[in-house]
């Protein structure tokens, strides 16, 4: 198996090879975006029992290309109240950050390109994963500034939601990656992929168990938290509150048109691809072939790993689309509660537990001490579970409305009567009959509709 020798492989490429790699990553991202938009529309279409785009090209594959060309020729409209410099900068920041982050994602092992041995990865650093995180955190500026510079209300609201959301979920995402750093002992993407290459041996109660090296199996809580926060980080459904079209028109890019709008659209899809690529790299073994294929010795050498990488990427993109097709949008407070009160504490507890396991493994304690520690942890866990403050009795959210036509007491919400009968239309009658209170519905319905908004 051709294995990368860590970071020593990088930085020896001639200039034309670096240029070629930059171009290859750029084209890969553009093609993947065009494909992903089509893929998403087709899959969602299939889930909603309709065909989806199927007119342009075979299976409608050229639909996104046609849409992109159309967008370029659209008229550009800039609001008069916009801050022009920042209005121009925002899509640039979004686009640049989206493209930059993908530079450190490894596509494959070291291959021979025109006689030069070079890894299939544009760049790698000892802290490569931090670069991806930094790029996505600077990408927030693109959204925040777009919303502000438009000089309009809905974009500003969308930008505010988005910045709060991305900062919150970046914390959960960063913490879930910490577990990977601890297990792999490195922050370089190529070395993390190499660390997942071999099956790990775990000694548990004197028995040796062989488990696959993928961190998705080894660190399954981190994997799940990473993916949930990745969906939040990319502003995708069910966490697409910043552009909730039923509440905010289109969110931060409402006032953008033509090429600038295309830049945001492109950045959103590239972010999705990058986050999925990082997920493949960190948790799904990177470009390594999945299990049954590894029995064939040639599966992990040469250019073939590109196929495995792309297949895993498409699988994750499918999950993104699947989530969008299945789940309704969360309310803002539910979303924040999930991030700060569920994902973050679970993550911290899991990291402490993992650190404890690492210490026990490394110190090679003798049997009795280890048993004592494990028993102690179990007792503590048991105490925590039993002494945990019981959850508050959930208030009866839905019940029958009280005589005043409200749910939840005098301060509750008004509700139309369940046995509502549509009153006869006054126009249909020859002589107008004054409607009685019983016909028009509940007493509380009319006077409080204004307060609901």
């Amino acid at each position: 198996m051709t294995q990368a020798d860590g970071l020593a492989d990088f930085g020896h490429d001639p200039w034309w090879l670096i240029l070629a790699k930059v171009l290859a990553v750029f084209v890969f991202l553009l093609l993947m975006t065009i494909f992903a938009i089509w893929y998403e529309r087709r899959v969602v279409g299939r889930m909603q029992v309709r065909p989806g785009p199927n007119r342009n090209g075979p299976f409608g594959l050229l639909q996104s290309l046609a849409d992109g060309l159309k967008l370029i020729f659209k008229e550009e409209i800039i609001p008069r109240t916009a801050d022009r410099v920042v209005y121009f900068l925002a899509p640039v920041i979004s686009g640049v950050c989206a493209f930059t982050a993908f530079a450190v994602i490894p596509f494959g092992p070291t291959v021979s390109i025109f006689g030069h041995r070079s890894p299939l990865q544009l760049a790698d650093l000892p802290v490569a994963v931090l670069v991806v995180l930094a790029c996505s955190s600077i990408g927030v500026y693109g959204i925040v500034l777009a919303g502000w510079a438009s000089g309009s209300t809905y974009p500003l609201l969308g930008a505010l939601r988005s910045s709060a959301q991305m900062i919150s979920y970046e914390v959960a995402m960063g913490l879930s990656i910490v577990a990977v750093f601890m297990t792999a002992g490195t922050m370089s993407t190529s070395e993390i992929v190499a660390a997942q290459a071999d099956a790990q041996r775990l000694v548990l109660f004197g028995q040796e168990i062989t488990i696959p090296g993928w961190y998705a199996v080894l660190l399954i809580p981190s994997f799940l938290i990473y993916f949930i926060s990745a969906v939040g980080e990319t502003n995708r459904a069910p966490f697409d509150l910043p552009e909730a079209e039923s509440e905010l028109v289109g969110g931060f890019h409402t006032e953008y048109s033509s090429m600038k709008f295309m830049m945001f659209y492109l950045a959103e899809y590239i972010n999705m691809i990058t986050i999925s690529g990082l997920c493949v790299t960190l948790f799904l073994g990177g470009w390594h072939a999945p299990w049954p294929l590894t029995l064939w010795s040639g599966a992990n050498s040469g250019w073939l790993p590109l196929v495995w990488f792309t297949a895993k990427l498409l699988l994750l993109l499918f999950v993104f689309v699947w989530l969008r097709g299945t789940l309704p949008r969360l309310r803002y407070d539910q979303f924040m509660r999930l991030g700060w009160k569920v994902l973050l504490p679970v993550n911290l507890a899991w990291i402490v537990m993992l650190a404890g396991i690492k210490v026990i493994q490394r110190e090679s304690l003798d049997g009795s001490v280890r048993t004592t520690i494990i028993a102690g942890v179990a007792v503590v866990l048991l105490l925590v579970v039993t002494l945990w403050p019981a959850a508050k009795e959930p208030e009866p959210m839905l019940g029958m409305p009280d005589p005043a036509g409200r749910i939840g007491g005098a301060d509750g919400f008004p509700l139309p009567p369940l046995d509502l009968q549509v009153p006869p239309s006054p126009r249909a009658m020859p002589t107008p009959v004054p409607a009685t209170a019983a016909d028009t519905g509940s007493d509380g319905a009319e006077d409080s509709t204004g307060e609901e908004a």
Partner: protein
Amino acid sequence: MTVADVLLTAIGAVVVGSALLVVTTRHIVHAGLWLVVTLTGVAALYLVLTAELVAWVQILLYLGAVVVLLLFAVMLTRAPIGARDDLDRPRWPGVLVGLGTAGSLAALLANAYRWDKIELPAAGTAERIGEHLFRSWVLPFELVGLLLLAALIGAIALSRSGDE
């Protein structure tokens, strides 16, 4: 002059220039954006000094969290587009404090090192920083953690005090 010297001088000039713009611009959101340029410049300085981890963490924390929160707060309260004249900025005390701080820091550093030449130590990798932080400097590290926790709880207490 080595390449590193030239880079340090150039980036330093950018940092000082954008820092001046932070306090002189009349657009409150633009001030935040110039602060982004300043902090990116500081990260670039770390990068030139081969402290890779510190540089990226600087970008991640200061740009990705602190300044975004700052802009968030400005936009949540009021985010006017265009210049404003009613920004409350006492000019002369500000100049005095700024020059005093810069002067005393410069004097301290110049006096401490004079013309000594200090070789750049090995690259500031995560291993080395972790080694120093959790062996030699673990007490200050824990103290800073405690301080931040206290500040956090204080902020929550302040924001909830109006509920009663």
